[in-house]
């Protein structure tokens, strides 16, 4: 069993790599969540062109391989669009990689959000019309809070998929857990292939622990949400005057 443990110095390097991986994941998650909300709602829009663009984006983001999207984003796009968007030049691989992974996540997330909005009973939307809520209010206060319970579990799985995707950043020379591992290998040549195998077993376990962490966070969010649903402490679109209702 002791053969499977690395030295503290090696763990310190892997810890730095893991932090970088989590940072890339956070960036990709923020962009991915934003895109999935916008595109997922956009796919149900009444306007045909909004639906068309959203559909095109979803098909593109889900159809392309994440590693190919990543290499295009990191290598080809800064050269091709660098003159038009100077911002893209000199961006670190971590930022561009997070953008690529966020685009990828947006495509899958949009389908999750679209599906769960469609799963909300039709009467809810009709009730909103009867209550004269605006479409934005309907989405913000009625549909999305209910859809959130359906969204969370698949979104957790998707986030783990993106966590696995962050390892690809090392292929395009970005720094993350996988790159930290490869840096370690360079200094381990004396220990031979067996030592490297042990290193990879450790790295696999770190990824496993990270994934379980993401899983746990989503479970926690689900539990908090369920409790709030039972206590009915959500915010309401119109201020409800309890005293006035009770008095009448």
């Amino acid at each position, binding site marked *: 069993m002791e053969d499977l443990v690395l030295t503290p110095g090696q763990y310190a390097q892997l810890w730095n790599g893991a932090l970088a991986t989590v940072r890339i994941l956070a960036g990709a998650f923020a962009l991915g969540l934003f895109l999935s909300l916008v595109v997922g709602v956009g796919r149900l829009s009444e306007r045909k062109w909004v639906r068309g663009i959203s559909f095109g984006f979803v*098909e*593109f983001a*889900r*159809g*392309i*391989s*994440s*590693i*190919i*999207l990543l*290499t*295009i984003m990191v*290598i*080809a796009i800064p*050269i*091709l669009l660098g003159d038009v968007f100077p911002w893209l030049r000199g961006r670190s691989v971590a930022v561009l990689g997070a953008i690529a992974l966020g685009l990828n996540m947006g495509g899958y997330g949009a389908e999750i959000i679209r599906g769960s909005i469609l799963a909300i009973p039709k009467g809810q939307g009709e009730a909103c019309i009867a209550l004269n809520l605006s479409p934005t209010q309907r989405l913000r206060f009625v549909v999305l809070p209910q859809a959130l319970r359906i969204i969370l579990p698949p979104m957790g799985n998707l986030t*783990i998929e993106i*966590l*696995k*995707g*962050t*390892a*690809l950043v*090392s*292929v395009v020379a970005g720094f993350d857990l*996988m790159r930290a*591992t490869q840096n370690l290998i360079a200094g381990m040549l004396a220990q*031979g*292939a*067996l030592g*490297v*195998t042990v290193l*990879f*077993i450790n*790295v*696999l376990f770190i*990824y*496993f622990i990270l*994934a*379980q962490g993401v*899983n746990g966070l989503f479970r926690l969010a689900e539990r908090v949400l369920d409790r709030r649903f039972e206590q009915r402490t959500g915010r309401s679109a119109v201020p409800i005057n309890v005293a006035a209702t009770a008095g009448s």
Partner: protein
Amino acid sequence: MADDNHRPEAPPTASDDARPAGTFEFEIEQSHKWYRRPEVLVPVILVVLGLSLLAVVEAPSGRFRSQFTPGRDVSFGWDYFFHLVPQMLRGLYTTARATVLGFLIAASLGLVMALLRRSERPYVSLPAAFVIEFIRSTPILVQMFFAQVLVRATPWLTLNPIVILFIVVGIHYATYASEAYRAGINSVPKGQWEASIALNLDPATKWTRIIIPQAVPNVLPTLGNYLVAAFKDVPIGDAVLSTAGVLFFANTIRADDFRPVEPYLLIGVGFLLVSLPAAWLVRRLEESIEYERD
């Protein structure tokens, strides 16, 4: 169409009267079973035949090389872009072939994993559950590196990079496939299990005639989705194991010509041209295979 199965006798129409006496028209009733309906069966057989052809025929080998390069001031050379297409297709073929062979392993190993996971003995099902969860939640890139050094560290074992790729993709997607099988088997209504006990069917009959035919319609589209997902993960093998797929093609051209834009955009387009129709086919299959359970 689902509605056609339960359609009662067609109501008489005007054309019935116009027909000369003595001729009959048979309306062929669509089979209730999904695997007897031609519109499901024919595409499935065609796809399977095509995929097995892909598995047997190897791509022509040879180095990826461009014929010419555009000038330095050209930001995107269309001639250059199009003259790379045949080589890209060769890389894409290798990628597709690796996907199919890897998925053959995944589909069969996945069933074994699903059955182990379903086992009633906890000392079988718990380790199986852990292994499935572990492989599912670690990146396939790291698994490929791991497999590579593991093969290197084992003196008696020498494997081609492409064989390592099949095996890693196969094992990785077997865990996904096992979840699909498990969901499919669990989706068979409880009454069906109870009925097969009540009818005293032996296990073989129960599984082959009752459970599996009802589970497959739920499993097949999910497996199709995972096949497309595996296709998207196979290019990672080009970066790790240097198999001659699309990404390897683009990397080679980039290293030779110092022109990264065209080859990378080309493989992006080529990839979409394969994966979008494939995803569309899976969706069609999903719609047409719906099984009536009333």
